[in-house]
């Protein structure tokens, strides 16, 4: 098992390397990061040349990538433009944990991401807990009452929500629960941000502001997972060991939740582990609509200003998370199902 994990980790290294190179090249042609630097003033051309030189943007893409990857403290660069390389570089490179400095606000990338990551994680993990809870409830109920009218209704509703685009759900929810509830004098939900500036960042405020974004993030996944749980539960309930458990006279809850669910949850665990990092992607639209100060909005803001270091940082972090969760999914699967052996 340890050897298997080690091998998977080693295989991930060239993968991450190729991904980072391709993304870096894509990022280079995305636009001019210097164009937005001077704010509303147009940057003078001599300033522009000097800035490009200081930021290392005048170098060929491959050299820039090399500096990003391994740093430039082993070489000297020409900062004053006289053709003589005189200043030693200070960047250490990603491989030594230096993710560079944001081109937009000159803060270290790790700090920029670190400020936003907790907000996104808060949203994501809450959503994930709600997704699993509701998907299990709906899926198990549907499987136990197959083809009942409630099951058919749930099937129709989940299919409907599964196909609904995230933004449409978000806008509808905002319109109903924020706009119209206020109109009707009911307690209404806030639509933008994490807290009211007047009330301050208390946990009650944050929870109140999380209701709509979390609902938006979860509804599609609840619909998808509950269908999946329904089908794996149906399969498990038809197995011989369930008949045996019943024949032994075990109470129904024990048969369902211990014998059937334990086996039915195997593929679900894998799917959840594989999808978890992708919730970050689903959060882009949600964070944009609800003005949530998380990673998705950070990504959008910095992509539009061609801020390579921050965008690369976010993308590589997600790529790394995806790979780790893939390995984790395989390992969990083997741990839950002893019939599976990795060599």
């Amino acid at each position, binding site marked *: 098992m340890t050897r298997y994990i080690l091998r998977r980790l080693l295989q991930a290294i060239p993968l991450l390397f190729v991904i980072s190179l391709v993304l870096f090249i894509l990022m280079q042609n995305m*636009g001019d990061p210097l164009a937005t630097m001077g704010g509303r003033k147009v940057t003078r051309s001599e300033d522009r040349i000097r800035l490009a030189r200081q930021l290392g943007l005048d170098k060929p893409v491959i050299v820039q990538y090399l500096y990003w990857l391994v740093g430039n403290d082993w070489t000297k660069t020409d900062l004053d433009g006289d053709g003589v390389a005189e200043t030693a570089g200070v960047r250490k490179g990603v491989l030594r944990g230096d993710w560079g400095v944001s081109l937009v606000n000159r803060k270290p990338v790790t700090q920029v991401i670190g400020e936003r990551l907790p907000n996104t994680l808060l949203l994501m993990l809450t959503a994930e807990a709600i997704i699993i809870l509701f998907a299990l409830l709906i899926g198990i109920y549907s499987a136990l009452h197959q083809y009942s009218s409630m099951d058919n209704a749930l099937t129709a509703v989940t299919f409907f929500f*599964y196909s*609904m685009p995230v*933004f449409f759900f978000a806008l509808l929810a905002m*319109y109903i629960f924020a706009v119209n509830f206020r109109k009707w004098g009911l307690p209404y939900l806030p639509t933008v941000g994490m807290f009211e500036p007047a009330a301050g960042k208390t946990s009650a405020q944050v929870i109140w502001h999380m209701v709509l974004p979390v609902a938006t993030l979860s509804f599609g996944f609840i619909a998808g997972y509950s269908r999946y749980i329904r089908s794996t539960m149906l399969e498990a309930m038809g197995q011989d060991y369930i008949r045996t458990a019943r024949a032994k006279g075990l109470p129904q809850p024990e048969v369902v939740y211990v014998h059937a669910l334990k086996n039915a949850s195997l593929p679900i665990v894998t799917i959840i582990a594989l999808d978890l990092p992708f919730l970050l*992607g689903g959060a882009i*639209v949600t964070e*944009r609509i609800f003005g949530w100060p998380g990673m998705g909005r950070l990504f959008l803001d910095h992509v539009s200003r061609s801020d390579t270091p921050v965008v690369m940082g976010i993308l590589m972090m997600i790529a790394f998370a995806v790979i780790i969760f893939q390995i984790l999914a395989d390992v969990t699967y083997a741990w839950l199902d002893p019939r599976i052996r990795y060599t």
Partner: protein
Amino acid sequence: MVDTTAPHPTSGIAGLRPDELETPPLSLGQLTWRRFRQHKMAIFGSITLLLIILYAFGGMLVFSEAESNAVETGARLQAPTRQHPFGTDTIGRDILARTIYGGQISILIGLTAMLVELIIGVTVGAVAGYFGGKLDSLLMRFTEAVLVIPQIFLLLVMAKYFAQSIPNVRFLGRTFSGSVLVIIFVIGLTTWPYLARIVRAQFLSVKENDYILAARAVGTPTWEIIVRHILPNSIAPIIVSATLSVAAAITLEAYISFLGLGVRPPTATWGNMLEGAYNYVESAWWLWFFPGLLIALTVLSINFLGDGLRDAIDPHSRAV
């Protein structure tokens, strides 16, 4: 009385009168149609989809494209009235006319992006599955690399990358914003890995059949084995997946247009009609409701259709 006439040459089994004959076996097409017909949601989806297509393309007869782009600054953000049944947008364009022309572009993007995905995905999957070995592992590592970055991130980066001022395109006497082409290719380029994996898995199992061995033994060229023998036998999951990816492409177009990196004006799509609409959740619900509803309906009916198709042409697979 002894029957002396010879058995009728056309009757299947000699000595049976026509009414004793079994009903003729159903053809594959009839069987498929039978299974599809039983899927009520799929029938509902097909009808809704037909109505939407009728709306988007039949609407051309009622409104001209110039009307859909006509700016009327005096009539900004008007609620639905008799004159503008769906209201007007932030610069006074008629939303009804724009959903008609936007629908055409959205459906067009869905279909063509699916074609791009199909070409790349089937080629990669077929080559990897058929030849195997080093080529397979190289192609699959590449597929994995694309899958590791969540699609929406990749889509945004690529849309930004290719969206450097592309000139307008004239096609069929109409002018399209060049960004339509960009979006089609970017969606096609980011969605193929899923299809490639399905095709590869199909090829891996189908190529083990004896008829492939026989074809190889009589010296059939490799490309003919792939195109004429394996591909038709693995077509069912490809059709299902292609159908569903039309819906996915329409949604993705809406996402990137919604985030402001999609199709540029003046060309309308359902997606870019929603751009900035969240600023008007409170004041102008008609701005986002109609295009959003049309996207949701289209995606829903295509998903129903795909589900029905899966049951009809690929009955062994299990719908999730």
